């Protein structure tokens, strides 16, 4: 188990320079708040969804390098994807955390593969993706209504 596997340069880059950090105006998007009570990590994820596609996603939150870099990558990766494609990506991410090797069109995500070797940190990496799953559920619910 090497620390270098966990803290790769690309992860630290997303942590120091997060993509899509911020918020949309009120009523423009689906919003999800999630937290991790054991460590205090928090994320608010917003997604603009139109015609079953994620037009854009933004997040604000507080947390460690793993949780925040994962949120940065996720919000970038789902841009332009259909809700089903985004859900598949969340599935693939769960696989990555189990030590599987799924491929991601947004390659930066694969840098998080090292997290699978640090069981205590998996919940950090999955926080944003769990918010994504909830957001997809919410958007689909609104689509049907």
């Amino acid at each position: 188990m090497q620390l270098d596997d966990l803290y790769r340069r690309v992860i630290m880059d997303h942590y120091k320079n997060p993509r899509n950090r911020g918020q949309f105006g009120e009523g423009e998007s689906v919003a999800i708040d999630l937290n991790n009570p054991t460590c205090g990590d928090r994320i608010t994820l917003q997604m603009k969804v139109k015609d079953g596609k994620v037009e854009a996603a933004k997040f604000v939150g507080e947390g460690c390098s793993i949780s925040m870099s994962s949120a940065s990558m996720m919000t970038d990766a789902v841009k332009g994807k259909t809700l089903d494609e985004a859900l598949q990506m969340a599935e693939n991410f769960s696989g990555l955390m189990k030590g599987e090797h799924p491929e991601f069109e947004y390659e930066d995500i694969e840098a998080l593969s090292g997290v699978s070797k640090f069981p205590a940190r998996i919940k950090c990496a999955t926080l944003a993706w769990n918010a994504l799953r909830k957001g997809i559920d919410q958007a689909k619910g609104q689509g049907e209504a």
Partner: protein
Amino acid sequence: MNTSAIRELFPILHQEVNGHPLVYLDSSATSQKPVSVIEALKTYYEFDNANVHRGVHTLGSRATDAYEGARAKLARFIGAKSEKEIVFTRGTTTAINLVASSYARSVCGEGDEIVITPMEHHSNLIPWQQAAKATGATLKYIPLQPDGSIAIADVEKTITSRTKMVAVAYVSNVLGVINPVKEMAAIAHKHGAKILLDGAQSTPHMKVNVQELDCDFYALSGHKMCGPTGIGALYGKKALLEQMEPVEFGGEMIDHVDLYESTWKELPWKFEGGTPIIAGAVGLGAAIDFLNDIGMDEIDKHDRKLAAYAVERLQAIEDVTIYGPLQNRTGLVTFNVGDVHPHDVATVLDAEGSRCGPATIAASRSCAG
């Protein structure tokens, strides 16, 4: 103190983690267990296991003697007047909940006050939130000084004649500070209020005498003082425990049972419904013997020496912020490294073989968990 000989007594430390000898720094979350405690559990299960207070057979008497013997040991260890004042619980949380659910709800009403501090662990916060909601009492906080300590003047200001209950940690799990609980007890009593001390972090590290402190209730956990998980205790002054109603009903706690009415056993058993945590109590007794063999004054002295060393070395590192007062503290030191998230610090330390408490480190940022 012969620390290397003592270290030898902890089997769990005889291992490597991530290729380094294990250094365990998370004792404030739970302490490791010496071989004597592990052996006591094993011996109890191998030779003495039976239910207590009823068996007319040899094992039943042995188990009862072992269980009640542990209660007497604990009573002596914290300076209680009698073992009747020691109620075994699952831990500090259950002990505090017992007081909040039983005593506090019977004495608090609309307009009364429950006083706590912002540095309390969730176990000494949520039960009081709930008791306040249930009774219409107001939950009040004694403000902290910038360094995290409690000023007596603020205690004087916050506790009033409407205060019925004061609850405070003897030693804070967030800041490591030792609070002026004896003075706080005197102020509470002047106003006719009762005081509960959360002793989870103090009992393992210093000599405690509940009569000297003159606290009304004192809660502690076995697993933080080298004992097993699942056992703890509530100390309460006899007169107060006597006026309290049990909150758990069933076997072991009843005196006389009728179809529609029942009566309770005398202290402390009326609070111990169901088969008690017998092995846990036996293990706790062994843990008390272990601590007494080293000596609580020795442990206290060693702890303060370690804390002073840790603070000195941490202060020498650029970017490290230490929380809590630098004086009057135990061996628990909370810090942050620059703007690095505490989780990341803990992972790096773990990779070097030390078990650090991310929850405790994180506590400085967000919560008192």
